């Protein structure tokens, strides 16, 4: 029914067995396996669902990795994966424009959620009892090894605890009864809009509609212990909690404070969720004490390794032989040694360049080439070299400190050199449209850095590119044409911006002000001016601080952009990434940057840069000229 991870852009529909088969291991998953409560935080597409599905028995069983046994041996719990159903999300469940009594709504939506969780518990139990593992298997500890009669007894005991009356024996009977309940709840929800009094009366008659999920879990664990005479720890893994109704969300978060020692709670969430703020404070679980916080953002050093494995997975799917993979994307300007020649890339030469040049190679090295070229065409850069006493003709005898100083602004020099025309002529010859992405941003290291280790972005960019390559006439010994790489990046950026253009702010946060895409565009344009403006800026502003002058509407948009991965939180010692970004005002003071995924659109170097107040950036007259129409025309082109 479902394809593997490298074919599906979203792990949600992929069966756990297939997730296990194509899973790419990294340090984030390692942290998630710990025997503690945890919250996995990350934007859309950053792999949260994959990590959660990987904790399940079928996924662990099908996983092939040298570290598998070592990791599994440390897991002391049986995971219950609970996907959040989009139909729980209040905005999707309510008929548009119709109001439902909030109390009625809360009871019925909670009942749906509860029913969904119970089904998942039975599913996990079923999986653990129907999987037969050799005695020596490291996974043997997960198996529920009881007789058919004991299972029947267990099912009866669970059903009693949950107040259900199955029509037949075993776990199947419970599932059937829960399905039946679910239909009753859904029908009550639909009817409640037309006849709330009648539905209220009905609810009063149905005691199961009043029950709480965490009581059910306790009763389940009791039944399990009684019947099997064994104690077991369970991990409730709530995926995508941000789309659950608020009352449920708060209850799940509160459960991180531990409600029963036989249960761990793991949940995944978006970086920003305004709805958690209002009344979760007094009982809020504490990071460190109650749970471990895990961000899906990979450390920069891990991005390349993870991306290579994703690339290998796609290649394997497309039958591209392993020996071909390392050369597929070719060198890039972003390689540490900056070894590739600009002229060769722009001339369309795609074979790997030999890594040779270095800072120490006088007059033949990459640094010399870039510095000299920019010095010729950019008076401001020439002045900067004079002022800082940097002589490109004399790079051979630099001290370590001096080299470190030069390395700080090499990316600005390279990008400025690539995009500035000879002095006296207009700037930016290649920028016919922002949409058109230049070859400058191609090559393996650059593409990996742009995708920031986000699996969905890697798939969006790499898969279509590799498919086109496989089906093209390009000789298989060659690197994928730079035009094809650039086009794939272009499609990825357009897709993200299209999605962002449909996001609306919180209804409560006012209706006047720039849209999300305009905020991003103004920010990107400001950074663009920093990098490619009239004056060379050695360390340009490429990030911003959300300051107190930002209005609620803009804050709401920024939160949405964080959740989509368009903005990224910049961690530092003063202001670490934190789950405290759960309301508009807690965004204030955070340092954010544009995702590198958007860097090609604004011709930005893939570095952090300095920071400026967002209110100053948005108020800047110079870059506020992009209208909705211009942005749309740029993204989609004109129509006639």
């Amino acid at each position, binding site marked *: 029914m*479902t394809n593997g991870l490298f074919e599906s*852009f*979203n792990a*949600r*529909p992929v069966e756990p067995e297939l997730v296990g088969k194509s899973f790419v291991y990294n340090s984030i998953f390692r942290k998630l396996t710990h025997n503690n409560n945890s919250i996995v935080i990350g934007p*859309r*597409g950053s792999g949260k669902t994959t990590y959660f599905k990987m904790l399940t028995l079928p996924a662990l069983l099908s996983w092939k990795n040298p570290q598998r046994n070592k990791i599994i041996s440390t897991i002391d719990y049986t995971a219950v994966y609970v996907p959040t159903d*989009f*139909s729980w999300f209040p*905005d*999707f*469940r*309510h*008929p*548009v*424009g*119709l109001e439902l009594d909030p109390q009625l709504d809360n009871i019925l939506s909670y009942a*749906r959620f509860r029913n*969904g969780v119970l*089904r998942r518990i039975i599913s996990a139990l079923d999986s653990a009892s129907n999987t037969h593992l050799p005695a020596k298997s490291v996974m043997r500890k997960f198996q529920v090894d009881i007789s058919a009669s004991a299972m029947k007894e267990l099912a009866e005991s669970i059903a009693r605890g949950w107040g259900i009356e199955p029509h037949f024996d075993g776990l199947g009977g419970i599932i059937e009864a829960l*399905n039946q309940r*679910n*239909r009753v709840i*859904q*029908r*009550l*929800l*639909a*009817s*409640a*809009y*037309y006849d709330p009094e009648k539905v209220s009366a*009905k609810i009063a008659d149905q005691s199961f509609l009043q029950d709480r999920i965490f009581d059910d879990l306790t009763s389940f664990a009791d039944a399990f212990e009684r019947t099997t005479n064994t104690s077991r720890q369970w991990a409730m893994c709530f995926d995508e909690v941000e789309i659950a109704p608020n009352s449920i969300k708060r209850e799940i978060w509160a459960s991180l404070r531990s409600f029963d020692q036989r249960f761990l709670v793991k949940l995944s969430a978006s970086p920003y969720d305004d709805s958690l703020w209002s009344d979760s404070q007094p009982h809020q679980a504490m990071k460190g004490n109650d749970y471990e916080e895990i961000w899906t953002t990979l450390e920069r050093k891990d991005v390349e390794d993870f991306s290579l494995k994703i690339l290998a997975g796609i290649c394997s799917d497309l039958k591209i032989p392993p020996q071909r993979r390392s050369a597929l994307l070719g060198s890039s300007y972003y390689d540490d040694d900056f070894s590739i020649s600009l002229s060769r890339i722009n001339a369309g030469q795609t074979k790997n360049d030999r890594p040779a040049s270095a800072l120490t190679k006088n007059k033949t090295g990459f640094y010399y080439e870039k510095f000299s070229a920019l010095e010729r065409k950019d008076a401001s850069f020439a002045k900067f070299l004079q002022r800082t006493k940097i002589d490109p003709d004399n790079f051979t005898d630099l001290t370590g400190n001096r080299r470190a100083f030069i390395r700080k602004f090499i990316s600005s020099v390279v990008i400025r050199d690539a995009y500035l025309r000879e002095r006296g002529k207009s700037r930016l010859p290649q920028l016919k449209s922002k949409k058109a992405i230049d070859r400058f941003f191609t090559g393996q290291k650059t593409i990996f850095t742009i995708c920031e280790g986000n699996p*969905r972005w890697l798939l*969006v960019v790499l898969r*279509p590119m590799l498919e086109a390559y496989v089906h093209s006439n390009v000789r298989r010994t060659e690197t994928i044409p730079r035009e094809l790489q650039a086009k794939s990046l272009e*499609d*990825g950026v*357009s*897709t993200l*911006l*299209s*999605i962002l*253009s*449909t*996001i*609306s702010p919180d*209804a409560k946060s006012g209706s006047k002000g720039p*849209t999300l*895409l305009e905020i991003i565009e103004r920010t990107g344009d400001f950074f663009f001016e920093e990098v490619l403006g009239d004056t060379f800026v050695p360390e340009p502003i490429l990030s911003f601080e959300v300051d107190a002058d930002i209005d609620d509407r803009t804050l709401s948009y920024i939160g949405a952009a964080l959740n989509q991965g368009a903005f990224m939180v910049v961690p530092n010692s003063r202001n670490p990434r934190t789950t405290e970004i759960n309301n508009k005002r807690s965004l204030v003071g955070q340092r954010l940057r544009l995702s590198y995924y958007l860097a090609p659109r604004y011709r930005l170097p893939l570095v952090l840069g300095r920071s400026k107040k967002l209110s100053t950036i948005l108020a800047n007259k110079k870059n506020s000229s992009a209208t*909705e*129409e211009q*942005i*749309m*025309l740029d*993204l*989609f*082109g004109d*129509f*006639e």
Partner: protein
Amino acid sequence: MIISANSFSLDNPAHIASDIHVSALGFESRCLSLISKEAILAHEHLFLKFPTSDLFSYAENEVLANSTARPIFIDFPSSNFLSDLNTYLGNSDIKTVSIDISSMNRTMIAAVISSLARTTAKDKVTIIYVPAKYEKPVFDFSEIVAAGPVLPEFSGFDDESDLPGSVLMGLGFEYGVALGLINLIEPQNAICMYAEGHDTRYENSVKKANLEFRFPGTNASAIAYDLYNPALTYQYVSSTIRNLQPKYRVSLIPMGPKILSCLFTLASIDFFGKVTLWRVVRNPTARNSEEDGNAIALEIDTVRLASKAKLFAGLFSSA
């Protein structure tokens, strides 16, 4: 659900007779073009009245509506909109109904068809659609303000909530909206339907606004339907739902031409409770739509429609 479909020119219109003719009263100039071209011969006129506006043709349309035989007006939106609709359409003296969906919004289309399915059986129901003349799209962002079932009875209350989601979606020339919705709902797969056979400029606009139908990062595919062959399109919609249903929870998201909204609503009645019919609310710039000179008429299978009445009754008695 559809007995027959045909198209005709408004310059030489078919004369559609009915006990009651239902149409929207709004600002689009095509709003009452069937009445102004004398294509409708009705004893009564039921107007679903948008809030009074000074935009485009609202004033002229209002004058024309007031000049028709026995005009009745129901305000939209209003708290009694659905109950008034049921009252008028449920009248057992009314045997034949004609409905002009051209300027209705998607809630109106769903409400009218739902009302006909749940009330007294009719002898004949004809649905008419007047396509709009092509106008270049407005260059603005299409922020999705709200999305959800169009009415409670179309909320897929009998579906299997454990199944993955699948979406059948109409495409319009609203920039990025289809992709935005897919991103929002994250279905396992999406089939995006775009209209052909009307105006190639419109077709090109739809293609451009939807990233040339590539939808990177999604499991979505695009398929064309013939705007002037709604019976065939209905067959496709119906058989697609039937094929998807064992494995998926199906959601229908009507965007693009209103005729597809109508077909999706009919399919939601046919698969009552098993599919969700969505409505997507945006804040688009108000724009006029002029008639392009043609109309498409569908005759509905009233026996089949009436057979669904007991399902409605079942839903509401279950409360």
